[in-house]
């Protein structure tokens, strides 16, 4: 079996110049998308247009933090998109959890669950930063540098295992058999982890002041 490769040449050029993004706003970053799309920054001049369904889209934007509930839908949408497909993570929340690093309901590092091609940093990124990220993406696609979906396919088991650690993948995966198998495999570890995580915390009556600070 030959290794799959990202498109190059005419195909790569057309793919880069015509990116249809999935109209799926997952977090705060969504508020900077309208300015990027509309008259002041006008993303359409690069051929980037919002599309309504994953079947038609090439580009999945994760605009901000992902709660576990949204992650399920995102994975489902991602798997429905036709290849080649690209994922861009917006904002620091997708890099390391950002502001919500200690939240019980958001995932911290997105590239453990989905193959990220490009991150745009900031909380949240300005339209200029978004445009800059997109030009980077377009240039990279034309040269065939981005291969996120190939990574995802080749390491499907790894990604599915990670996803199974935080969510029930059986309902949300297109490949039901694989999902079922991996889900059964990780049950034990998942249960252990959950037990460790939900140890009843003794609420301290003492002052909650960090130690070593001057009075």
């Amino acid at each position: 079996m030959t290794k799959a490769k990202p498109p190059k040449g005419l195909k790569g050029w057309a793919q880069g110049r015509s990116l249809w993004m999935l109209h799926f706003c997952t977090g705060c970053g969504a508020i900077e998308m309208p300015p990027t799309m509309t008259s002041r920054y006008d993303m359409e001049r690069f051929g980037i247009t919002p599309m309504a369904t994953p079947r038609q889209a090439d580009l999945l934007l994760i605009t901000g933090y992902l709660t576990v509930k949204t992650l399920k839908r995102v994975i489902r949408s991602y798997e429905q998109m036709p290849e080649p497909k690209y994922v861009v993570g917006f904002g620091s929340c997708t890099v390391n959890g950002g502001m919500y690093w200690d939240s019980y309901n958001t995932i911290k590092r997105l590239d453990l669950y989905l193959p990220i091609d490009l991150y745009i940093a900031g909380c949240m990124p300005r339209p200029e930063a978004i445009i800059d990220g997109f030009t980077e993406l377009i240039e990279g696609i034309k040269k065939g540098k981005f291969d996120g979906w190939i990574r995802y396919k080749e390491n499907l088991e790894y990604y599915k295992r990670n996803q199974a650690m935080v969510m029930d993948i059986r309902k949300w995966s297109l490949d039901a058999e694989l999902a079922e198998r991996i889900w059964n495999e990780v049950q034990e570890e998942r249960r252990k982890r959950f037990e460790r995580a939900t140890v009843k915390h003794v609420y301290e009556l003492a002052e909650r002041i960090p130690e070593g600070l001057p009075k």
Partner: protein
Amino acid sequence: MNGKNEIIREFEYFIGPQHPGITGNFSIKLKAKGDVILEAEARPGYLHRGFEKLMEQRHWIKNVPMVCRICVPDPDPNEVLYAMGVEELAGLEVPERAQWIRVMVLEMSRIQAHLSYLGGISGALGLYTAPQWMTGDRDYLLDRFEELTGARVYHIYTTPGGVRRDLPEGFEDRLRETLDYIEKRLTDYYRLIFDNPVFQKRTIGVGTMDPDWAIENGVTGPNLRACGIKADVRIDDPYLVYDQIEFEVPTETGCDMFSRAMIRFQEIQQSINIVRQVLDRMPKGPFLNKPGNPLMWRVPAGDVYVRVESSKGEFGYYIVSDGGVKPYRVHVRGPSMTHGIHVIETLLVGQRVADVSPIMFSLDICPPDIDR
């Protein structure tokens, strides 16, 4: 009922979270017969970050950057609310100038939120030129915000004790220019949106609610004023210096989508007037009363409920302190908690599938403040 009508199939389907006709990340499960909706169930929770829990983990001052993230399209009321609540608990004096600046920031935030609202509802009806124009013009206001606070959307500008910094030099003139520009554009918007026969046809008499029903079901803000009830937190429960400012509270009697859009349109004009008044009458003086070492600052035990009028309705914080360096509990009462769950579930019944998205946009539902 049986017999002939059975040909019409009953559908059950989801609008959202991955759907263009949804404000933010939200979903509605619909049961429809043919084109008529029989039952709607709102399903929030896609944006739940556990804000109230996270705020208990952080010091009083460290929560300031967090709170503005609660409502993404209109973040400033959150900052002001949190600051007001903490000040009331701690008995912290706010300088006169800071209060005027806060009013200005709140009203600027209202203008930009209403502009994106009008863009949103016309976009939901297919009039794509309106969102393009309005988001473009809203950006000029965001530029002023950036100049004042350093950020476009999340300003983190209001802190307990005042505001983070004073107005930059020449800011007032530039803000006036921007306001003049937006005021000039209002005529264009009126002609594009409200004079449009198709827009009128789609919105007048659609998504109506009864005024008494609206009050009892927790409808607040512009949505309530569109039912002809003159209720505004700025007047009823005055905060900051709103009792010294002259402004009108517009009301409409249609109770439908058109009135709800019209109210917002008129409020933009009112907010422009308020900002102008603030610029004229703002006193000189200090702008921040620092509360001391933020890591050590204790707020006396007690509880307080504060509310402001945000662009979406009544925003309220219930803050409890046990005398520690961190809040004991903060409860956020967002206006969308009622608009987005109970009100929309009731309004959608009997409507057409085509009207789901416009009705949702017309109520100005902000999912992050439901989920928190």
